[in-house]
């Protein structure tokens, strides 16, 4: 089970060695959870986080394998390394969970998020918004005489940065999808 991945630098060579050189630093991890697509599975996963006091920073879920009846949940969470190991082991106990991958430790991965920003304004602010959007490769998906809706795709940091820039230019509404992530290579 992937929840048991060995951390680099662990002393034993067992695949079940959960022990790492734990420090108390809080880390941010992106977990990809493959689950059976049956009613209540998401509630089980979320209930686990709520019930045991773990953090959810971002959550996305959708069916990814219609044939195999599987959905993929991507969760960004944070905690000390020991807590992260517990989260993975606890997720692994949920019966409809098939696989837990920790994208943060299992080699390089790519993460993307999509966001829509509604920016209302006139005159210079409006022109500046379009100029910045272009730099961020944001698309205009709707426009009125007094507003734009921009679509931005990228890392969460990029989206954060775009939001910061839009705020003084008349940002009125934001919606973000949460993170979708995949490991790189084959």
């Amino acid at each position, binding site marked *: *089970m992937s929840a*048991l991945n060995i951390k680099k630098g662990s002393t*034993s060579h*067992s695949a*079940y060695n959960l*022990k790492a050189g734990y420090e108390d630093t809080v880390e941010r991890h992106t977990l990809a959870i493959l689950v059976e697509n049956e009613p209540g599975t998401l509630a089980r996963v979320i*209930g686990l986080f709520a*019930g045991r006091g773990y953090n959810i920073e971002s959550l996305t879920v959708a069916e990814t394998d219609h044939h195999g009846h599987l959905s993929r949940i991507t969760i960004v969470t944070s905690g000390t390394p020991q807590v992260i190991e517990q989260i993975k082991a606890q997720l692994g106990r*949920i*019966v409809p969970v098939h696989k837990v991958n920790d994208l943060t430790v299992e080699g390089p991965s790519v993460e993307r998020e999509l966001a829509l920003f509604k920016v209302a304004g006139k005159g210079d602010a409006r022109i500046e918004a379009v100029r910045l959007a272009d730099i961020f490769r944001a698309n205009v998906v709707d426009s009125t005489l007094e507003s734009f809706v921009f679509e931005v795709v990228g890392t969460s940091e990029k989206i954060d940065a775009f939001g910061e820039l839009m705020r003084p230019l008349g940002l009125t509404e934001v919606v973000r999808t949460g993170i979708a992530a995949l490991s790189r290579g084959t």
Partner: protein
Amino acid sequence: MTKAMTGAKMVVQALVDQGVDVVFGYPGGAVLPIYDEIFQQNHIQHVLVRHEQGAVHAAEGYARSTGKLGVALVTSGPGATNAVTGLTDALLDSIPILVLTGQVPTFMIGSDAFQEADTVGITRPCTKHNWLVKDTDDLARTIHEACHVATAGRPGPVLVDIPKDVQFATGTYTTKQARKSHYSPQVKGDITSITDLVKAMETAKRPLFYTGGGVVNSGDAATQLLRELVAATNFPITSTLMGLGCYPASGDNWLGMLGMHGLYEANMAMHDCDLMINIGARFDDRITGVIEKFSPHSKKAHIDIDPSSINKVIQVDIPIVGDIAHVLEDLLKVWKSRGRKTNAEGVSKWWDQINTWRSIDCLKFTQTGKIIKPQYALSRLEELTKKYDRYITTEVGQHQMWAAQYLGFENPNRWMTSGGLGTMGYGTPASIGVQMAHRESLVINVAGEASWLMNMQEMGTAMQYKLPVKQFILNNERLGMVRQWQELLHGERYSSSWSESLPDFVKLAEAFGAKGIICSDPDDLDDAIMEMITYDGPVIFDCLVEKHENCFPMIPSGKAHNDMILGENADTANAIQGAGGALV
């Protein structure tokens, strides 16, 4: 082979196919079709309890005493909510049970229908897994899958919620063999880690086996292998409350139970050992006390089938994920093939040390005067019943701890107690479940009067099914364990810890048609106990005991293993201080 039948019939058929012979239950509107099927067959016996909580605890008692799956059947709404405590109890103690609940018909779900409750929602956090079956074609497969999930890996409670229309409708029956599941926990341990453990065992000077309920869960083979391992290595062994009996109490290497109310020698050995071998125990807080002070100098190995048990509370050096019987088998093989080595000289010195701790005799007490000490009552019960084929259940409180200390268990599955949840009211229904599985055996519920009142309605069940369960009540007229903590932590302000307005237990017994015995004089105790044992039927034994006796030894919360309060004459005022006061 597939066959068409109604959902209700499928339920019975699936249980029969799973080898279920007893179901504990209580009917209601949403399960009537299933009850109708039960009425028309002879394979499964239904035991009508008096409260759904009783059904679930009875199923737990049945399961724990047989190693098989326990089954309960209850109606929707209040039937299901009454089952919640039992489900949570089974979850914390890893007991394999299946609870079947009726549900309002599928087309009424979500409409606040009569006796509708979101049963899968309510029980999601207190089951290992649960299912709502919306199609009769899925019903048999789901029940087979549920039985598999309950018993595979770390056992636990599962629940299948069955709407009434699904029970009435006809569908295709799926056999047990046709079930396919991705759920198959790892049972073989990693051989490199097992070898690491063997190496550590070869050199350890102060090794200790710390065993738990996982050995019972793993089954008879695990017990046999554990005994072989202990005999071959001569290492000392202690166990949690949940693992009592896996190693015989009469065995030479037995140190007794460890933990908050464990024996002095067991706790001292935990603190001072250099190699701790945890076999199927989960470093519960009753065991560890303060984490920082827990066995500071030991290398720790942990064998557990549930990866989440490992490194949850205590960071270990040698984690081994797998089933105990499988791992111990490999462990013994590796150890033998490497020449059966131990550090005999070191271990022998370790035994010298342990024997000096033992000589303190931490369970000693003196029975003087005309009032029965609870310790004395249990010592006599032990003496007079140990030659019987005996099963013990308990309630929760001081009496439970005294039972763990003063009764000896020679085999697993003989001791049924609510450890993780600490559910008062567990013992009586559990004793009924045990007696159903072992009709000819002596089944005793060691109870406190307060706990006992919580599910006393089940005496009716005992009478109806002629189950000769013995309710041995240590009556101190106090919520004793609560009172003890108030003495230790709250300046002897006994807030609501008096058991007031108690019934006359003898009359109560008679009202149920059972036998009542009261005993208050130590000189009469043996005869009274013999009368209880030999009576052919249920007995309520009201044993009036010392009211303010404390249960010792005790590691006060916030203290380390080597910082115990020992027996008689202990100074208890303000024994728990500072941060320890916040702990339970």
